[in-house]
Every structure is written in C-alpha cells, then in structure tokens.
C-alpha cells in the first residue's frame, strides 16, 4: 500500500491509509480475514471520517484497494453509492471461486473450500457474501479501474474478467489494465512508472485534479 500511496502523494493527492481489522495495528477481532465483507465497513468508516470530520466532499473521495483490500473497496463502493471512484488491483469477483482455486493448488479437492466456507458460516462468519462481483452491479457509471496480472496464481485473472463483464453489463466503462507477465499484485512493482501514471490519471479524471 505504501508504494501506490506514495505515487498518489507525489501527484498531490491526500492519502489516508487504514489498517483493516485484524491487520497491522488495528484491533485483532477474530484473527481471520472477513473476505472483504467485514473490511468494507472499515473502509466506509474511514470514508465517513473523511467526509464528516475532515469535511471532504464525497465526490472528491475515491477508494483504492489491492487483493483483499480490493474486495473490500468494491463491496464498500457497492454499499455506498456516493463513493466517487474505485481502483482495484488483483481483486476478486467471487471469493468462493478463489478459495476453490487456492485449495486446488494445494492438491486438495475443491469441495473442501465449500465445506470450509460452510463451517465458517455455521460459526457466524459469512465471508463470501455479499460478493464484490455482485456489488459491482450497483456501480452504474461510476469510474472503476480494474488491474490484474495475467499470471496471478492466487486470484486468477478470470476474476478480473468477471468484474469487467459485470461492470459493463451494468452500464459501466471500466478502465482495464491486464498485465500479461506479472503475478498477484505484481503490476505496481514490475511497472511502477506506468502504474503511477495510470493511477494518477485515473483519479485525476474521476475526482478532479489533485490541486483543485
């Protein structure tokens, strides 16, 4: 997160980075990630804080997320129609499919992922619903950038295809950057200059220039 935050900062954007629940210095609640479902509330809490305490208008606030954070910002923007723009990098449309893929990569039958999710659900941890893909349907024409490495072994690039399809079906025109030779979240490290220029251009167009 520091890398893109630094990029945005260099272009004059003010950046607020939060540690999602159970991460970094934020309180460890369950010690488990919530699939973006719980984390989306953290994002919206920070969004509230920016609007109400810092007095920043909603149309000047965009969201940025990578991987799990991407899932969280997609869900948050789906729930909050006033979120102005979203940049997601290596996010997912359907966590269940991603977990099945990851389980298969351990040479374990993929139905165990469903069993594991069902086990979590039995204990009150619903981490796969609402799905980021479902929430993107509510984006309408809001600016959305989708970045994904085509060699992503953790979150297959098909998840990006799904997000693109859903957003286009909802009338959106997503900004798409599928990087052929990088893995999970690798675009910013492999092509920092291009990443920076694309990132700054996207948020400048969506939120207005940073100095405005």
């Amino acid at each position, binding site marked *: 997160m520091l890398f893109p935050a630094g990029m945005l*900062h260099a272009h004059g954007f003010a950046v607020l980075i939060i540690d999602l629940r159970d991460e970094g210095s934020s309180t460890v609640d369950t010690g488990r990630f919530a699939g973006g479902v719980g984390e989306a509330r953290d994002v919206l809490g920070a969004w509230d804080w920016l609007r109400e305490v810092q007095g920043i208008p909603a149309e000047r606030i965009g969201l940025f997320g990578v991987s799990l954070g991407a899932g969280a910002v997609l869900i948050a923007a789906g729930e909050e129609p006033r979120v102005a723009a979203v940049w997601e990098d290596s996010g997912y449309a359907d966590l269940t499919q991603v977990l099945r893929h990851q389980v298969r990569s351990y040479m374990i039958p993929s139905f165990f992922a469903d069993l594991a999710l069902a086990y979590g659900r039995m204990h009150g941890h619903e981490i796969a619903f609402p799905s980021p893909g479902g929430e993107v349907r509510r984006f309408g024409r809001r600016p959305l950038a989708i970045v994904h490495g085509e060699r992503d072994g953790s979150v297959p690039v098909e998840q990006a295809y799904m997000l693109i399809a859903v957003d286009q079906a909802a009338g959106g025109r997503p900004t798409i950057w599928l990087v052929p030779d990088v893995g999970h979240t690798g675009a910013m490290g492999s092509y920092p200059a291009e990443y920076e220029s694309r990132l700054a251009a996207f948020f400048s167009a969506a939120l207005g220039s940073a100095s405005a």
Partner: protein
Amino acid sequence: MAFSRGAIVRRRGLQGGSLGRPTRRPAAAVGGDPSAVVGNRRPAASGRTGALASEDDRPESAAMRRRNRRLFLLGLAAIELGFLVGAGAIFTVGLYDRLTKVEADCGGRYHGQTPALFSAPVAAEPYLMPASGKCDFRAAIGRSPSTPGGCPVQRPTPRRWFWPTDCTSANAPPPCSSRPGCFTLTGSQS
C-alpha cells in the same frame, strides 16, 4: 474318487463276507455311477432326515455365516465412514483456519509499526510522505449508544458504527478495544 470307492468296497466287503471275500454289492455301490454313492449321502427326497439332520442344517448355517459376514463388513464400513467423516471434519476446520487466518499479509508481522509506515523503506524511489498523522477510529460494532459499557458514540446508519476521532482532539473517547463488540481502526494520513 476311484480310491475312495475302492476303500468303501473293501471295508464293506470285510464286514459283510464270511471268508474275507467281498460281498456282492449293487453295481452302483461297487463302481458304476459314482453319483449313486454320493446320492446315498444326500438327504432323502422323501423327507427322511434322522441321522442326516445335521447335514440338513448346512445351508442355513452357510446363510447365517454369510449374514454375519455381511454384518461384520457393514459395521467395518460404518466405522471407516465415521473415521472418514471425522477426519474430513478436522481437515475442513484446519483448512478454514489456513484459508482465513490473518498472518500472510500484515497481521502480526507489522503490528505496531503503523506510525512508521511513511518512512518505511519500501522502494528505492523517495515515496515518502513527511506530512503524516495517526488517527484512531474508535469503533463500536453492533452496540447501541445506550448500551452500558458500550463505546461512546455510534453512527446512526446501521451498516457501520464508527466513532471517528479527530487526531488532535483532546476529548477522544477512551480505547474500547478491550470491550466486547468494540475495536480500534488505525490509520495514517498524509
């Protein structure tokens, strides 16, 4: 079979003949059709049981043995199934733990380092943000404002209950992370 038949003939001959010579026996018993000898040992079709009663029970015993074996195998299969289900359940729980536990990214590893985020040497490029501050978001999840012991304030919208404090506020609410249903979000801003 030929030797057996010969033995029968010799024995019966000794019992029946006065001079040690074989007594004439019906052709069927002496040689001829061997099935006749075996046939004498079969239960009579007329229902004659008597001395052959134990032999009559044989089919039932075999059926019982088969049934017992089936039951045994069924029990064995049930036990194996139980073991499999148990092992599968344990495996599933372990897998859930592996899939969802926060440890691969930031949880723990960078704990307590948030204030130093902006000076972290993450890249050769000077992506440093000198003007940074640290804010704590006091959050009360699922608690109402009137709940005794709950966090001080909650947002009116039910989807999230955050009490964001001003970084510079002297009246920031006390930490609520130790209370049930509360947690703290930490953030940094440039």
